[in-house]
């Protein structure tokens, strides 16, 4: 009995919605729109649909997305955290050969102040802030992310062209903001050596 009543209610509600939409569409059709204007609206919608399609397809099928890993961290206790303790920062290569770069942003530099990475290699950057909001951009590359205190900003990219690049803070973080920058060397893949500390660790294991 109750189920029948609920079904009836749903039925009525759907009916109401359909009626509303029908009425809405009928009213829409009654509005005078010049045929040229109608054409232009259709063209506009097509342009927008094309742009949206490109972005959506890239996102879903090619994995082109901005840095969006929602991962929290206590920015006040970075030095006590295992991952972002001082001796763990910079470039590291794990057992699978994947390269992870852990960086701390703080007024007014990025730490470590200089790193070297291989060109044409997948790199995973993990950025954290130890104080306020920062942003980081390596000009001429898509290595760009905001570094929000309380969150880990993770971004995966690769650099096609070897060279010396500056690493710039691009969000106002205080009166010394201009001075907040560091360096990165992108080294030809074949010349790049994994950081010695890790190599040493491996040797000990062997």
């Amino acid at each position: 009995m109750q189920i029948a009543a609920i079904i009836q209610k749903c039925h009525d509600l759907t009916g109401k919605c359909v009626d509303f939409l029908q009425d809405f569409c009928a009213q829409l059709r009654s509005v005078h729109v010049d045929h040229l204007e109608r054409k232009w609206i259709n063209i506009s919608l097509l342009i927008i649909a094309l742009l949206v399609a490109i972005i959506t397809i890239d996102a879903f099928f090619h994995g082109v997305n901005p840095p969006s890993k929602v991962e929290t961290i206590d920015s006040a206790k970075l030095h006590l955290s295992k991952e972002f303790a001082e001796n763990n920062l910079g470039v590291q290569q794990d057992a699978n050969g994947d390269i992870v770069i852990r960086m701390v942003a703080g007024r007014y530099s990025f730490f470590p102040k200089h790193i070297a990475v291989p060109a044409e290699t997948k790199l995973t950057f993990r950025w954290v802030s130890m104080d306020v909001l920062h942003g980081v951009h390596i000009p001429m590359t898509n290595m760009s992310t905001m570094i929000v205190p309380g969150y880990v900003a993770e971004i995966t990219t690769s650099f096609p062209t070897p060279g010396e690049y500056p690493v710039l803070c691009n969000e106002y973080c205080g009166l010394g903001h201009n001075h907040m920058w560091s360096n990165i060397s992108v080294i030809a893949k074949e010349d790049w050596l994994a950081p010695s500390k890790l190599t040493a660790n491996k040797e000990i294991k062997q």
Partner: protein
Amino acid sequence: MNDAAERKLALSHLWVAFIAFILACFMGEYQVLERSGFIPALESSTVYFASVSTHGVLMAFVLTFFFIMGFGYYTATTSLKVPVWNNKLAWTGFWISLLGTVMAAVPLLTGKASVLYTFYLPIQAHVSFYFGATLLVVGSWVWCVIMLVMFSQWKKANPKQPVPLAMFATAANALLWLWTSVGVAAEVLFQAIPLALGWIDSVDPGLSRTLFAWTLHPIVYFWLIPAYTAFYVFVPKQAGGFLFSDEIARGAFIVLAVFALPIGFHHLYMDPEQAKGWKLLHGIGTFVVAVPTLVTGFTVIASLEIAGRLRGGKGLFGWIGSLPWTNSMVLAVILALLMLILGGFGGIVNASYAMNAMIHNTAWVPGHFHLIFAGTTVIMYFAIAYYLWPLLVQKPLFSNSMALIQLWTWFIGMSILTTPWHVLGLLGQPRRISSVVYNTLLTLAWKPYELAMIFGGLILLGSACLFIYILAKTQLNPTTEEFTQQIEYAEPIHPVTALPEYLNDFKLWNRVIAVLMAISFGIPILQFFFMETFGSPAWGY
């Protein structure tokens, strides 16, 4: 109708707006000079960031709020042909906003609120800055209420009648702003002020950025809608023709009001605290809101073409030459559209989810918003001022040719300022730096563009001074001739006699906004209360 009270109300608002504007223009020119590093004596990051914070607040909040309120009161009273509802309340709103402006200006000018106009936490300003900003917004809410009351009272008195387009657009803007300001109001009331007063120890900067993004996009449409209103209700008549379509104009304002709101995450594309699905959703919405702008471009150009042909223009492009280029409103709309086309192209780059990574927070971004706000929007504010000033002070405009020079120089100055600004962004220069101290070869490529920006800024400053001079001279002109000119709203080609209710009212659209906002901001805000987050204490700067 004797509208002396309304004229005084509008004029007071507009003067506050333009005084804020001219002060901020001087700061702008100082900033390009300081930033270039050509004059070492000027260099001071303390002064620079105090200046850039004040410039941003004056231009983005004071110029716009007071202009929109003044313009709205006058549009409402002249298009509906009724006095402003509750004149006393309107003045209360004015004084609340003005008090807020002063309360924010004191810490800004004394370097106690160098947090830029986006005031991102956990960097903290003096508490007076937050109270000032709050009062400024509260004053604007008074305006929203008055506009919506006038809208519904008129509808009650004139059932089934189409609301005049100018009022429809103004009401759309009032509704838009009420929704828009909720985000930043929540941020200031629940995070910034309690933190500044020491009631709480920490805030979540991820949440505050999310709330700010709620406001950060639709606010630009709040600024832009008066310009669009002028496109539709003044331009066709001033050009000597008719509005191409009244119904489509209403549709455009509705879509603007509805879709400007649920799309703020394109400011957070590069942020770690929101997931990619939400960003993509807001990204798609960002493209949808481009549709009413494309449609507006068509309608405005079509209206201009009708006017050009009525004035004897022949051939495919002949009508352009026969437009009244010496009419300040017509000249302004042509220049505004040119800047809108270029700025819109830049906007598509910013909106594009992945391409945005190349230009995010680079000099490209201020280049973009100066072109589209200080260019397209503000040049229409000028044109509206030139049109309204004679009506408000009941004296003829001091000099039309000076007004034309002022509009042209603004356009030229803005082109010279913003083109190199965009290029600097592509060359990797961050926005929001007070000087270039990076020891890298890349910065050598930046110098010539910074030099060009100084000249662009100088032209703009001269143009801004000329603008204020024309307004002041018009008002102080000791003429005794009787002034009979009336405000003229454009007529559509096809007069609108009846409209479907949803094109004449906002009740349905208000509900649609509520649903869209719940979808696009519901979970992204609630997530902060369900996951383990770590707050940040307050920091100085």
